[in-house]
């Protein structure tokens, strides 16, 4: 191996690098950070600076180049709460939560209320509820056509409801075993 005539400098290099990294320790310096790295500290914004920023929200919209409506748009949409959009079937063994309007035939042995019951009444899934109240509750399976308001399908459903009105049972429309409300006029929903 041929050594450079300046190879002795390689012994000095680590010392030089080390010398550059040594920072004199001042007991009143850098005490904030255990690593000794100076912290970047800035002054908190003043109230007047912050208030000036708050005035610039509208400018943010202008800079973004999104267009403004000619006049304020009245928003009609609002998300209905889950419980607010439900009805509650209360029987001897518990209660179930169903979409409002899915009980199309009613009977006196099952109460249908608009608010969830309070007290020691167990909450049951729809399938549990039907199982435990066999004899007073039954499902009416509906087709996709009913959900899309197909006239022939709705006519068929109406005739089923009429037939079941004399059975003395609460009937709930279902799709694939789960409760579903159907687009029927309210006069088609019968009370016994």
């Amino acid at each position, binding site marked *: 191996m041929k050594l450079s005539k300046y190879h002795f400098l390689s012994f000095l290099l680590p010392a030089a690098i080390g010398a550059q990294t040594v920072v004199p320790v001042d*007991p*009143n*310096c850098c*005490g*904030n950070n255990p690593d000794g790295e*100076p*912290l*970047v*500290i*800035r*002054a*908190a*914004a003043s*109230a007047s600076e*912050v*208030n000036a*920023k*708050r005035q*610039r*929200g509208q400018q*943010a*919209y202008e*800079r*973004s180049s*999104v*267009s*403004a*409506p000619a006049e304020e*748009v009245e*928003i*009609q*949409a609002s*998300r209905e*709460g*889950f*419980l607010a959009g*439900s009805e509650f079937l209360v029987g001897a063994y518990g209660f179930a*939560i*169903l*979409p409002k*309007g899915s009980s199309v035939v009613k009977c006196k042995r099952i109460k249908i209320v608009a608010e*969830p019951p*309070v*007290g*020691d009444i*167990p*909450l049951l*899934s729809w399938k549990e509820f039907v199982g435990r109240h066999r004899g007073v509750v039954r499902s009416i399976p509906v087709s*996709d056509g*009913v*959900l*899309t*308001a197909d006239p022939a399908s709705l006519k068929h459903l109406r005739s089923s409801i009429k037939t079941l009105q004399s059975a003395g049972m609460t009937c709930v429309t279902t*799709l694939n075993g*789960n*409760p*579903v*409300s*159907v*687009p029927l006029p309210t006069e088609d929903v019968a009370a016994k």
Partner: protein
Amino acid sequence: MKMKSFSQAVLAGLLATQAYSQASNEEEWTVTLRQRNLETGSVYYATVDREGNAPSQAPVPEGGSEFTLWAYSRTDQGTTEFFVDSALVGAYLPKGRLWITTPDPYSGGIPRTRIDQGFTLNFEVADLDTSAGAPEAAKKLLLDHDLAVSTNAVPADGVLGKTFDFEQRYLDRNGVGSIRFPGSNIPGSDPFSDSGMEYFNLYALPDGTVAELQLSEAQVQIWPMSSAEFVGLESSTPYKIVPEVSVNLTNLYPESETWVQVYRGPESVGTNGTRLSEAKAIINDVKPDNKVLSFKTLNNVLDDNGEWTLEVLTQTPFGIERISWTTVVIDRDLELRGSFQVLSD
């Protein structure tokens, strides 16, 4: 009208997660997918697992379906619901998504920021029909921006006032964009106490048969700036013995650390001094908090005659900031000169 306690709003995202976890652990929680047919209004409920995916069991019409995921719990006191998420699916529905980013990396629920820091509203729009013959509802989406101000002097225990309109805009281009707000838009004159929520909703416009459809929503929590006050020191008085000093800290930012440093000389922002180890404030809450720091051994630290500066520093996701400072003059020679005077007499 949106009216709910501030802490409730803060925890909304967490509660959904909590509901999920409890659903698996104690089976006291139920998660239900609600599907609403936008053409006929029929509603379908299906109880679902806390995780997973499956094809929709009810048909999705051309006009679309709104899917909302709810978790609810049952106790003897009643039934409580939590909204988890929503999505709109339809063949001809424009799509839109909002999300907010802030300098605070908090990921526990609703994004948060401080009133002076601002935030960015990001949006992504797809499937707008910009052809000449397209109906208005297919050409653009409505962005609605509302505000709610905390009505309580202590924001952490505050109640949000009535939501009010701030701005409305149309998004009429497909693609991704953003709007950078340099500060919060919460109105008021005192950023050390003003706080609230900013709400953004993205709607598909009504098409004559259905009302506006909410495509997406985003919210951001706005917390006030922190303040500090030294108690027990007077800048105009030279001290032989430094008295006990306390520092009243107000509205310290969530997950922040606050301490006091001292250094010789007049105040100068950016100076790295000696951190006082006697007391510090660490906030591990999701809300701002107040603390008091007490220093009984300051006399040992200010060990030389002259002017000293004490600064309150707070470290937050926004960096390290000086929120208060004071100076104190130490002159221990006063007593010695007085003694010599007595001796010479």
